[in-house]
């Protein structure tokens, strides 16, 4: 077990592509860190550099305080779980899990004991003598985990280890990965695309974009206090709503009407020297059906009317979608997000607003309704730099 430090780490591929640039991450001993970001942002590259599968172009990687840049993967004492599982097809489950131990010239009795132990933890005892080709996806995934844990490495690296499983199995495996990591207390770096995994698994989340670190912090902190538009839009599903807005003497004119700023927001915006044109971000759960909000709260927030276009009733909550006139916010961060979500070029996505309402709401599809949103929860962003103007670290 050991802490992992990436000190100004940069990766430039042979073809000149800058995949990771000047990344600083300090991962404490036993910590579970998640790397998220859109496709091609350098997550795998970062992981492969820690593993030693890719050379580091610049900066330093330290594991347990020792510089690792020049060490071969086998000398770093790190285990990796691959998205494809990368099980050796010609070996049985037992041989697969024993492989790292055999290479380390561990004696037979110890190999047998460790493999049996790992198999017991991962519930693989019944399958030890089968070949990977004859296992289900979930079983293969567990074998891959088993191969990683048998030799008690200093750290685990996992590159989207659950993304080949179906949703239900992924949920189950997510909890077992979490439990396993807590049980073993091994430093873990985990790459994922999945919002739920990012929010639930890690102690801290690192958001990457185009090879640059956008923000590092606990999942809830990133959700509540995104440093910029990109993080705000990337963390959370459904994503935060972004609307263009104009700041005018203490009030904000938006496509949802003119809104009085609360003290917190005004002070933060003043401190950040906000420009006149800004982007307003509101999370879906900060909206509510106005008829369900008590009078005191109605005063605190802002209300407006809109025509519900789509209503998704989830049982415990309802998602209402509507679009607003002339409401598309423009910023390079948002274009990136749209590209990642695959919605670039789809008309109307920018002006579409998603709201999460209580199940008790009586709004109906195709009908006009009165909505309310909590103006104190509003976040303002600078369209030019993407920076969160209302950011505070507490």
């Amino acid at each position, binding site marked *: 077990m050991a802490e992992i430090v990436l000190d100004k780490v940069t990766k430039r591929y*042979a073809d000149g592509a800058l995949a990771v640039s000047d990344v600083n991450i300090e991962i404490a001993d036993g910590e579970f860190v998640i790397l998220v970001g859109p496709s091609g942002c350098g997550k795998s590259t970062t992981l492969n550099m820690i*593993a*030693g*599968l890719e050379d580091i172009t610049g900066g330093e990687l330290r594991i347990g305080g020792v510089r690792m840049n020049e060490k*071969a*993967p*086998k000398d770093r004492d*790190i*285990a*990796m779980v*691959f*998205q*494809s599982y*990368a099980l*050796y*097809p*010609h070996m049985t489950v037992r041989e697969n899990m024993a*492989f*790292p131990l055999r*290479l*380390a010239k561990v004696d037979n009795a110890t190999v047998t004991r460790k493999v049996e132990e790992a198999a017991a933890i991962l519930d693989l005892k019944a399958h030890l003598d089968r070949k990977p*080709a004859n296992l289900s996806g979930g079983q293969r995934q567990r074998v891959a985990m088993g*191969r990683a844990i048998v030799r008690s490495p200093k750290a685990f690296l996992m590159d989207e280890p659950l993304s080949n499983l179906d949703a239900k199995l992924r949920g189950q495996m997510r909890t077992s990965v979490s439990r396993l990591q807590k049980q073993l207390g091994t430093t873990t770096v985990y790459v994922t695309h999945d919002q739920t995994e990012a929010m639930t698994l890690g102690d801290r989340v690192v958001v990457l974009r185009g090879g640059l670190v956008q923000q590092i912090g606990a999942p809830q902190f990133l959700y509540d206090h995104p440093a910029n538009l990109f993080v705000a839009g990337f963390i959370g599903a459904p994503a935060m709503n972004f609307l263009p807005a104009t700041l005018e003497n203490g009030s904000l004119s938006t496509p949802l009407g003119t809104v009085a700023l609360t003290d917190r927001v005004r002070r933060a915006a003043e401190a950040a020297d906000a420009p006149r044109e800004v982007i307003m971000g509101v999370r879906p759960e900060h909206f509510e059906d106005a008829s369900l909000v008590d009078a005191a709260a109605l005063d605190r927030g802002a209300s407006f009317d809109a025509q519900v276009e789509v209503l998704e009733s989830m049982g415990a909550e309802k998602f209402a979608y509507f679009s607003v006139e002339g409401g598309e916010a423009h910023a390079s961060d948002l274009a990136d997000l749209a590209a990642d979500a695959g919605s670039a070029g789809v008309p109307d996505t920018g002006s579409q607003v998603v709201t999460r309402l209580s199940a008790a709401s009586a709004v109906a599809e195709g009908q006009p309704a009165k909505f309310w949103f909590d103006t104190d929860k509003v976040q303002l962003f600078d369209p030019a730099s993407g920076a969160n103007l209302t950011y505070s670290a507490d």
Partner: protein
Amino acid sequence: MSQTTEAARPATTHRAKPVLSEGKRAERRLGLLLCAPAAIVMLAVTGWPIIYSVWLSLQRYDLRFPDKQEFVGLANYGTVLSNGYWWTAFGTTALITVVSVAIELVLGMALALIMHRTLVGRGLVRTVSLIPYGIVTVVAAFSWKFAWTPDTGYLAKLVGPDTAVLTEKLPALSAIILAEVWKTTPFMALLLMAGLALVPDDLLKAASMDGAGPWQRFTKVMLPVMKPAILVALLFRTLDAFRIFDNIFILTGGSQGTGSVSMQTYDNLIRGLNLGIGSTMSVLIFIAVAIVAFVFIKVFGTAAPGSDPGRR
């Protein structure tokens, strides 16, 4: 021949009858009709000569004594199999096959790895390495022969002024094997490269993470995973090498005990005009090749590339 096709067809339809619907059966009939012309041509050009040579091998049939032609059963086989020259040729052929295929495997694997790894000018490297395979064997054999000709050949000069490589048994065999290896290693490399492409990158990365060095990755992961491709390559090359003819014909003409079984067959069949004995020999070669193929497929479990990967 027409009997075989007609006999085969009712058998298939009969077996399929209980499970196939009318539409399926019509489809199958159409399928058979569509491939019938090709099958008939195949039978005519490959099946017929085989059957005919089996027929010839059962007769005493020497074109120098045409009146003495008669059916002799397996007598020709007795004659050939009890003949010392045949067994010498057989031993020579087996030696050339084993040694040349072994060398080709090693060199071919090295070449395949190089071609697989090359990032710049990959196309050029592949094309260049395939040149020997693209040259007609006889042409290449002649250039080897000139190279080994005492006094004038560059290779002959290299080994020394007074040695005539092609006139002694072992050096001549080595020269033959060298020519074979030079010519067919690219083919081996190409087959092996197809096998290399079957080894996922992730698997090698995983092996590195598990603590394997380059050599261990090669022997413990790469070789076992590409075993099917290696076996197919070995099978193809073994069958081919066993029938070696052109190189020997040009380089030594089969003298100094360098003749292969194919050379012997040629000597008897074409030069000696003994159709009976010559056919017997070609049938024996056919049987030997069939046994090699059988051993590869049944004992080592060789499969055609891409077929049924989950079995192993």
